[in-house]
């Protein structure tokens, strides 16, 4: 296997309310960190850039052109990749294909979102239209409402409780203390999480990720460039991408998982030749607490019905069977939609290079990233190896 594809540099901006930062400033911050993370990679060594963002939050149309201009990546090819909240890992998948095919040697994946100059209700109106605008959005849908419907079905089917959901929030917020780039870097008690106001029953404010500004950058390279431009390349072992109908009404019960994620996981495990039990550390798309429990089941970390038990038994805490979201997850990092997947991969790359600091998983060799678009319309699974 000579044609391996590596990640040779990772970066992200601080996530959160960034009142003094435009999309240029945010992407610059992430790109700069990623370049510094490589071994002397120059701008001219980057053969193409892929920009990932979800439309509708900032006014810039065709943003790849302005990002490539600002980062001085012209005249190399650049374009936008969109898959809602999974945009940046779908761009990573595209970058992999470019490199694997030999079309390009080194590709930069730049994800971003600028959200906090809009109010939360205006953002939910934009997000609600990432559901079917013909027969669902006219009822007043939002992402919290959609996920709340999955939470209710999960509770009904498996006896999952509001405490189980809150435990996911407590875990992820706990680890955020060790992530200087997270929007919120503090602990919350179970009682506190349970006492926050209901957004869409049964989901409360601290069951939800917050809207944020932020950017991420991943630099992908073929094996020979990886050896030249990285001290410690991290290899892409498996990739999976699946889809689910956008409308809830076109899906099959039970409403406790995403077909897109099952398909993406199947593809990624097969390609990587690994099983769920081989995963040493994982980042899953916890846009809501329920989404993390859904992910445990969809990724085969446990049977779907056992996912509440997994959080109760602390199997996904550091030191547990599969540590999950030990960088704080979306719940505490904030969720700048187009940047999130890249941020997850950055955390996993640090883990595989042994740079996890206080949250390093001892001897981590195989890592999994799970990045969901909208209400599971797209799921991307990436498996990385040290």
């Amino acid at each position: 296997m000579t044609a391996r594809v590596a990640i040779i540099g990772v970066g992200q901006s601080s996530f959160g309310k960034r009142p003094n930062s435009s999309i240029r400033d945010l992407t610059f911050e992430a790109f700069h960190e990623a370049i510094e993370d490589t071994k002397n990679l120059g701008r001219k060594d980057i053969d193409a850039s892929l920009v990932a963002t979800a439309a509708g939050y900032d006014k810039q149309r065709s943003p790849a052109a302005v990002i490539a201009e600002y980062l001085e990546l012209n005249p190399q090819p650049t374009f936008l990749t969109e898959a809602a909240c999974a945009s940046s890992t779908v761009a990573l998948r595209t970058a992999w294909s470019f490199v694997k095919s030999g079309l390009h040697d080194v590709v930069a994946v730049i994800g971003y979102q600028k959200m906090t100059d809009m109010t939360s209700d205006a953002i939910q109106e934009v997000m609600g239209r990432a559901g079917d605008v013909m027969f669902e959005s006219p009822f007043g849908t939002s992402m919290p409402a959609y996920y709340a419907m999955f939470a209710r079905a999960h509770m009904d089917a498996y006896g999952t409780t509001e405490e189980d959901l809150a435990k996911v929030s407590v875990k992820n917020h706990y680890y955020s203390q060790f992530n200087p780039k997270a929007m919120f870097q503090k602990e919350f008690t179970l009682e506190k999480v349970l006492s926050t106001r209901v957004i869409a029953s049964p989901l409360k404010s601290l069951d939800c990720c917050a809207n944020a500004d932020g950017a991420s950058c991943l630099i992908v390279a073929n094996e020979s460039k990886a050896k030249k431009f990285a001290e410690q390349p991290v290899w892409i072992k498996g990739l999976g991408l699946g889809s689910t109908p956008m409308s809830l009404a076109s899906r099959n019960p039970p409403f406790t998982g995403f077909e897109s994620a099952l398909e993406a996981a199947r593809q990624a495990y097969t390609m990587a030749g690994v099983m769920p039990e081989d995963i040493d550390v994982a980042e899953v798309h916890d846009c809501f607490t329920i989404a993390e429990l859904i992910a445990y089941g969809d990724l085969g970390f446990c049977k779907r019905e056992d996912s509440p038990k997994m959080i109760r038994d602390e199997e996904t805490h550091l030191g547990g069977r599969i540590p999950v979201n030990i960088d704080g997850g979306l719940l505490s990092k904030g969720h700048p939609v187009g940047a999130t997947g890249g941020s997850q991969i950055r955390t996993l790359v640090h883990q595989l290079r042994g740079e996890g600091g206080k949250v390093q998983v001892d001897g981590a060799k195989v890592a999994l990233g799970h990045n969901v678009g909208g209400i599971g319309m797209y799921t991307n699974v990436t498996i990385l190896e040290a």
Partner: protein
Amino acid sequence: MGFEQFGFVSYVSQAKIGEFTEYLINNRLMGTKCKKCGKVYFPPRGDCTSCLGEEIEWVEIKGEGKLVTYTQVNFAPTGFQEDVPYILALGQLNSGQHVFARFSKDVLLEQMKIGMAIQLVPCKIDEERVIYEFQMP
């Protein structure tokens, strides 16, 4: 006339099944049936996306079904804030199709139970706008 009268807020004005809103105005819940393979769609479709048949006919839909899942929305997106709280639900009609809709305002959160019998009915929002909603049978 098109589709712009459908919903509390509508985002689509033109569609092949535009007549659907006229039926709702006349208090009729109608779906489409493929003349080739017989598949019945609710919400309606302008073509049969299953067998690719392009000839459809309108058929009456019995709105009886059961509750699959639900949520009560307290934080609404822009354009819907005056309606909170409202209950969004997914139901399954006895004829098989899943339907996404709100519950009628006179039904309370405490009354919700997954699996319970529900009834889908056409409903006028105001002089201009129509929709369908779930009620207790």
